[in-house]
């Protein structure tokens, strides 16, 4: 047995008292979970302490909370680890809070319906069959199905939604869990509506191009779903395979980036911006939407020039690799983009075959 201090952020909707912190002392074996600690407090000290839980075995997804500021399943987090890696130097304090980005109903219970489930519903989370529906089962190549198993591992705990930094500033963002669910069907060879699903998510101003690529959802997920990687897959298939040119500049930005690295070897920022708005060619900057963006950016550009940060002639010319290296870069493009099928290595599926050294 060991002594622990549980600091819990609490909220009681009936008293309309704002959130407050409460400290509980308890004694439990170090291998016990944070959930067991919360339940111990509820049984022994305060029966009103609210937490959602069911399976206690990291498969039902009910007990998502924040432990020491990071999203986690309470049942899947040992007291020993939480206390040692905690925010308090005493090595015995564990801080437990409700998840973020969702309204708190009571104590550690958040309103999953208002945010998480609503977003899941938004992506049509069921199979839309190819026709004709076979009399018996669909026959699907193993490899095609393996590709979506990563997203099928999702247990809908909401940990990724809790810490999504795009959702923090744009509550309408479809979010990591729903986007991963969308890929589960976009990547399913039995689904008939891949183009419609992609167009829907690409054209939505709060869809796949609203992800700010912060990796929080990858670290948050207790099941290795890597929602952000699924969002990147959705973008890749949407732009490269279906050529969906969306109203959010997502496809144009990606195409312009790839073209400019091909043409210059390095990133040509002054060309990337207008092309992201106006289209992927030198003429992109003359497109009305590029012009509007230019007008909006003029004060920033003027300041950068006035400060001597950017020299106009140099910025417009861009930097470029020497010819020999540029030829090599273009050769790489030719070989890789010339393949009949895009090759993609997913370490979730393939695993790491040898011990990889740290970067």
């Amino acid at each position, binding site marked *: 047995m060991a002594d622990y201090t549980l600091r819990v952020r609490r909220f009681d909707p009936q008293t309309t008292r704002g959130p407050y912190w409460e400290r509980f002392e308890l004694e439990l074996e170090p291998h016990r979970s944070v959930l067991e600690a919360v339940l111990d407090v509820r049984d022994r000290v305060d029966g009103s302490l609210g937490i959602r839980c069911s399976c206690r075995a990291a498969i039902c997804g009910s007990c998502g909370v924040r432990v020491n500021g990071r999203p986690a399943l309470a049942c899947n987090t040992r007291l020993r680890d939480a206390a040692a890696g905690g925010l308090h130097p005493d090595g015995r304090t564990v801080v437990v809070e409700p998840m973020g980005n969702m309204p708190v109903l009571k104590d550690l219970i958040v309103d999953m319906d208002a945010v998480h489930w609503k977003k899941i519903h938004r992506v049509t989370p069921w199979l839309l069959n190819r026709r004709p529906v076979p009399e018996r089962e669909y026959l699907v190549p193993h490899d095609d199905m393996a590709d979506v198993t990563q997203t099928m591992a999702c247990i809908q705990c909401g940990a990724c939604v809790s810490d999504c*930094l795009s959702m923090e500033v744009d509550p309408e963002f479809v979010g990591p869990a729903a986007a991963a669910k969308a890929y589960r069907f976009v990547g399913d060879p039995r689904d008939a509506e891949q183009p419609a699903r992609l167009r829907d998510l690409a054209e939505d101003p709060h869809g796949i191009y609203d992800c700010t*690529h912060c990796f929080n959802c990858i670290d948050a997920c207790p099941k290795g779903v890597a929602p952000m990687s699924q969002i990147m897959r959705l973008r890749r298939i949407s732009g490269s395979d279906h050529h969906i040119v969306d109203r959010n500049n997502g496809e144009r930005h990606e195409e312009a980036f*790839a073209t400019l*690295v091909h043409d210059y070897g390095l*990133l040509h920022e002054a060309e990337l911006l207008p092309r992201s708005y106006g289209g992927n060619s030198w003429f992109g900057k003359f497109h009305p939407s590029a012009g509007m963006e230019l007008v909006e950016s003029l004060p920033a550009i003027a300041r950068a020039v006035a400060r001597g940060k950017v020299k106009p002639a140099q910025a417009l010319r861009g930097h470029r690799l*020497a010819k020999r290296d540029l030829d090599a870069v273009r*050769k790489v493009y030719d070989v890789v983009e010339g393949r009949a099928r895009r090759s993609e290595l997913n370490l979730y599926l*393939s695993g790491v075959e040898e011990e990889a050294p740290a970067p």
Partner: protein
Amino acid sequence: MRVAYWPGCVSRGFTPELHGSMEAVAPLLGIELVPLDRAACCGAGVLAEHNQELADTLNARTFALAQQVDGAELMMNICSTCQGAQSECQERLDANAAYRAQVNATLAESDPGLSYEKGLTNKNLLWLLVEEIGLEALRAKVRRPLTNLRVGPFYGCYIVRPRRLLGIDAERPRDRYLHQVIEALGGTVIDYAGTYKCCGFPIVTMNKTASLKQAGTHLGDAMDAQADCLVVPCPLCHLNLDLQQPLAAKVVGRPLAMPVLHLPQLLGLALGLEPKQLALGKHVVKPSAVIDWSTAVVGAPAAA
């Protein structure tokens, strides 16, 4: 120490003061920079989104060029985004021999004689400072302690997440290094909400309001915490936090005046260089105008 130096694109493009201040501060740190001027853009995650193998092959080419630099102990970058994007590519290359062979076959076609061997060490300047130079040695090099300078660390996503990929653990708390470096230079670390958040830059062309709301919120939080300045190891964060700061102020509806320093600039100040040598006047929010240097940084540098 001699390093294969990857400055990245933006440090030579829209934030030239970053590359310039790195070159100025390197000799003071005993770092010999051998620039990888034949290498291509890391792709910043966008190329990998477009075609994973393309990004992996271009970065394998960079790694192979780094491995050819005589006497270089490792490869060093000065951009969180380069670090993250390259670490992601390297993880795949190092994890699978067949995939590595496929990538190397492409390199053999594009640059005969060039080949990536598994196991390159690629470190951001921040990691190199703490792990190779050491905080004690860094402290000994300080000639003008940043006394009373209240600095907010802003890491940038790519250098703190995913934790496992970047090798962040109890033994190598790389998510605390910026805090440790600020303290070693004599500054005061400011605790504010934005330290590990996203600057918003990746979506600035896709959802400008959401993007600048992120930048503006973190800058405002730092002001509320009474920081004198932020320090970033990533030029892309710098673009959204500094260049776009006036626009971000409009989006969040509050005046903002928060100088944002590149990591080599903060180092240079403490190691005795003058603000002008570090191009501090080239920022949109001039640190020289906002910080009271007479109280924040004590006088002229001490004699060596």
